[in-house]
């Protein structure tokens, strides 16, 4: 599959799974989508190990786009990215956009082969932090 991969990370495993379900419908399974949420005990939170595995699951040489909700999902995603060699980690980006809307837009354009850089450009108007 010559499309970027997408990882949905939420504090809640249910939210992550449901958002991924919506994305899958949007891209008609032309994009690999992984989701994870919550801590290892099944409570709310985020887990760098799960995020690392999710990135591996959807790995594409074209890159991987990660969508997060609250603070610790971003921090644990950064830790997960740092575990990859630089040749891979530079192709993984946490996208500054809302989880649902950003994810849906990405699934849609990624299924047409858009690059990671192109996606970041497309989502610039949705930015939450800059």
């Amino acid at each position: 599959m010559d499309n970027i991969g997408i990882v949905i990370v939420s504090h809640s495993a249910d939210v992550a799974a449901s958002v991924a379900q919506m994305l899958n419908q949007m891209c008609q399974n032309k994009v690999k989508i992984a989701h994870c949420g919550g801590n290892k005990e099944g409570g709310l939170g985020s887990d760098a190990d799960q995020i690392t595995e999710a990135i591996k699951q959807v790995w594409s040489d074209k890159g991987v786009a990660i969508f997060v909700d609250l603070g610790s999902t971003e921090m644990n995603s950064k830790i997960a990215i740092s575990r990859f060699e630089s040749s891979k980690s530079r192709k993984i980006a946490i996208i500054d956009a809302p989880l649902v809307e950003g994810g849906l837009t990405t699934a849609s354009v990624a299924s047409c082969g858009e690059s990671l850089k192109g996606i970041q450009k497309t989502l610039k108007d949705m930015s939450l932090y800059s």
Partner: protein
Amino acid sequence: MENTLIPAKKLKHVLKFTVEKVIAIEDELNSLDRAIGDGDHGANMSRGCKSLLENIDDIKFDSTADVFISIGNTLISSIGGASGALYGTLFINIGKNMNTGETVNDFIIACEKGIDAMMVLGSSHINQKTMLDVLVPVLEILKEQQTDLSEVARKARNLSNSTINMKAEKGRASYLGDRSIGHLDPGAYSSEVIVCSICEALNNHG
């Protein structure tokens, strides 16, 4: 080995003493976090510390660097929240930067690198009502060659209390804006307890 910062055996004692102190304040941390966050800082810290206790015999207390890296990895994989990511990054980076030597000076330099890594991860700096409001000034005190650990602990307590009047600019407390003023920051308090416990453990068994 005289120049070694903390002999391995003592390090195990310091770790055990510190994690037990943090576990003991679980309810207090939860209630501070309920006021301005999501109420789980105590549960998260306690889970991480219990995991350290369970795995303490698997940690190789031969090199200080490896001990800090093990502590960091355990916290990251067991806590599953911002505190695990931040404290984990702190300890891993202290460990990684101690491979050149294990003197007090090496430790202080490594702590500075560890705190820098925390700042990058959290995109934060001091005066934002966070752990950094205790850790950064404590590091400055250590850099001034302060060797009286009771004095370091006393300052750590004052620093944590100084977050009461701050407005939160990071984490979920920042959603509250001015309403976060008047509350002790739970992250600053856990940092205070960690610093004070390390000082106490070193003083008692120095």
